[in-house]
């Protein structure tokens, strides 16, 4: 894994020293809140409903065990003993005191972590496939390039005051697990017809109040051209993007209003200029970064213990069926540790759980962990013979929930339980859905399903790309939940369509039950998933299930 250079360490230390002084000046009164707010946001410190919130970057979702242990230490020492993993592979602490934040930032720096550019109109934490470096279908590990983008974008002098925030995601595999099409820029590793590796570049994706699937601006970009091309896109946006209206300031609107062709022409003109200016320095740096991401020496040992475990233990077999993914090394597996135990808060991990995960990573996973945008923890490289004992230790900590990819593996933003922007709660809706369908005993029968919940139109909970999306709104002073259907977060990204009027807080779970019972009645066979049935039949039968009374009224009329 990448380790800080002297330059990185000095940069972070200097930023932390500056922020400590800024906090002191705020508390002493020589900085007003208006002056201090942008400074704290540059360091990921928000003021939420009940307390401050510190958002810490986990670049491309990759953590070492020592870093996970330090997050647990921070949670115990300065917060309430837990952390919340987010849909952008960050971790948020919900209860820090302003006066403690400089010490927290120093504790983060000790393990080469920080909160820089986790807020503000800058290039945010670069996200990547959470199975990077392990997935069987991978063309190339996307993390070296993600790290190169991180270094280029961190404190980039031209891009500290963009029209709006800017998000970049990278995937190295044809199966898109990084939701690249919902980012401002998506970078997809591809092979051209001559077998050469390069990137397909997408631009102008985003969810929020104007959801748009990103469009391809370059079908094939030679690898060495990546940074100058990204620089051309962001600097074109920096000039062309709107600053008069916050809601029209994202690059998706810039591309939409100017047209992709005209935006592309402007980018290509800049690219022609920048390409020669880079002069290959970035490629020299990339080669160094790549060495740091060399895969571990995968252990070669028999996998009999795994086969024996499958034969002997039904619970292990169930968990292996949902929470393991094919590894590129046959004797290994990728383990998804679900942070979605039924009734718990999606994405939350207690400090004890974090420490256990760090220990498990050391004992069975070459010290590596990943955070997924789906708010789970990944052990990317586990030898199959270790899986039974790993499972047993996860069980003891309440971390062995066998629900990856199922109904209760719900993405939920913090919603109005924490967030100042939220218009309704999302966490309790996720909790109720998980518990309700567990009690019904229908989760396994329903099978693969993506439910994603946002507590406001900004869509941190990715509801637009959920097979079932739930959007919490404030309708005349009452929480109200709109349902969208048919969204897709993969390489075939699609925005779900709104089913109709929203449901009250107490009505949303019964509505989803009607919808899913309709699916069970409508599916062609037990292996046809919800999204496949939806695509085959369209929205009409599902809307009829959501709104039975209205359908009857229309029939009667």
């Amino acid at each position: 894994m990448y380790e800080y250079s002297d330059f990185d360490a000095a940069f972070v230390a200097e930023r932390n020293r500056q922020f400590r002084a800024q906090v002191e000046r705020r508390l002493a009164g020589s900085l007003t809140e208006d002056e201090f707010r942008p400074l704290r946001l540059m360091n990921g410190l928000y003021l939420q409903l009940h307390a401050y919130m510190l958002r810490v970057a986990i670049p491309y979702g990759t953590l070492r065990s020592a870093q996970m242990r330090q997050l647990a230490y921070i949670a115990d020492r300065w917060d309430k003993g837990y952390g919340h993993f987010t849909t952008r592979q960050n971790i948020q602490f919900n209860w820090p005191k302003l006066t403690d934040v400089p010490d927290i930032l120093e504790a983060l720096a000790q393990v080469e972590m920080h909160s820089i550019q986790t807020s503000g109109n800058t290039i945010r934490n670069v996200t990547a496939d959470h199975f990077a470096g392990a997935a069987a279908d991978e063309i190339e590990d996307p993390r070296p390039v993600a790290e190169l983008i991180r270094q280029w974008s961190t404190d980039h002098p031209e891009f500290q005051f963009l029209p709006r925030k800017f998000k970049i995601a990278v995937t190295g595999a044809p199966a898109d697990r990084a939701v690249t099409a919902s980012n401002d820029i998506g970078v997809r590793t591809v092979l051209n017809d001559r077998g050469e590796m390069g990137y397909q570049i997408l631009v102008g994706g985003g969810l929020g109040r104007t959801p748009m699937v990103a469009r391809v601006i370059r079908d094939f970009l030679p690898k060495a051209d990546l940074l100058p091309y990204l620089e051309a896109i962001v600097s074109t946006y920096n000039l062309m993007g709107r600053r008069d209206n916050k809601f029209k300031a994202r690059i998706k609107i810039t591309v939409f209003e100017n047209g992709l062709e005209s935006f592309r022409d402007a980018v290509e003109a800049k690219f022609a200029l920048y390409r020669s200016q880079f002069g290959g320095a970035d490629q020299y740096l990339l080669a160094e970064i790549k060495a740091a991401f060399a895969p571990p020496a995968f252990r070669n040992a028999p996998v009999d213990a795994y086969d024996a475990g499958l034969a002997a233990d039904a619970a292990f077999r169930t968990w292996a069926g949902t929470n393991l993914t094919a590894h590129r090394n046959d004797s290994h597996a990728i383990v998804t540790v679900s942070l979605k135990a039924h009734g718990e808060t999606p994405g939350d991990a207690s400090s004890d759980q974090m420490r256990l995960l760090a220990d498990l990573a050391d004992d069975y996973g070459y010290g590596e962990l990943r955070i997924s945008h789906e708010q789970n923890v990944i052990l990317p490289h586990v030898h199959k013979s270790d899986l039974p004992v790993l499972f047993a230790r996860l069980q003891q900590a309440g971390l062995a929930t066998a629900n990856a990819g199922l109904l209760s593996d719900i993405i939920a933003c913090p919603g109005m339980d924490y967030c100042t922007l939220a218009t309704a709660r999302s966490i309790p809706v996720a909790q109720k859905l998980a518990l309700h369908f567990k009690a019904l005993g229908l989760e396994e029968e329903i099978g693969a399903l993506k439910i994603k919940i946002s507590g406001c139109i900004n869509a941190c909970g990715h509801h637009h790309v959920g097979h079932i999306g739930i959007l919490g709104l404030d309708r005349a002073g009452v929480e109200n939940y709109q349902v969208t259907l048919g969204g897709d977060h993969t390489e075939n990204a699609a925005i779900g369509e709104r089913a109709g009027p929203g449901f009250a807080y107490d009505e949303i779970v019964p509505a989803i039950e009607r919808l899913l019972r309709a699916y069970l009645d409508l599916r062609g066979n037990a292996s046809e998933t919800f999204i496949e049935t939806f695509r085959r039949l369209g929205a009409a039968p599902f809307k009829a299930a959501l709104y039975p009374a209205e359908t009857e009224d229309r029939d009667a009329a």
Partner: protein
Amino acid sequence: MSRRYIPKVVTANDLAMGDVVYLTADDRWSRHHHEAELIEDEAHAQLRLLNASAQKLLVVGPYLADAKAGPNGPEPIHFRETFRTRGPSNYVHGKQQDAARESTNV
């Protein structure tokens, strides 16, 4: 006839702790909504907000929130303000945690 003014409380977050606070009639910042000054006059509300906004070393982001009179003092009207009086619904954290501690100490 002009519409009746909806009473207000002045609320903000504590600068150092981030906790939700309410301005009282005797110019304290209370952690409890029911101790807030219930302001029934619009001009007075603006003055109280100005007063709060000047206290830059104590609070952040003061604003006027709709409220109504209750048996133990002002009560919030909107659900967002109700959540602010107690804390999140997924853990007993925030004000509800403080309340639980206080009741066990009695």
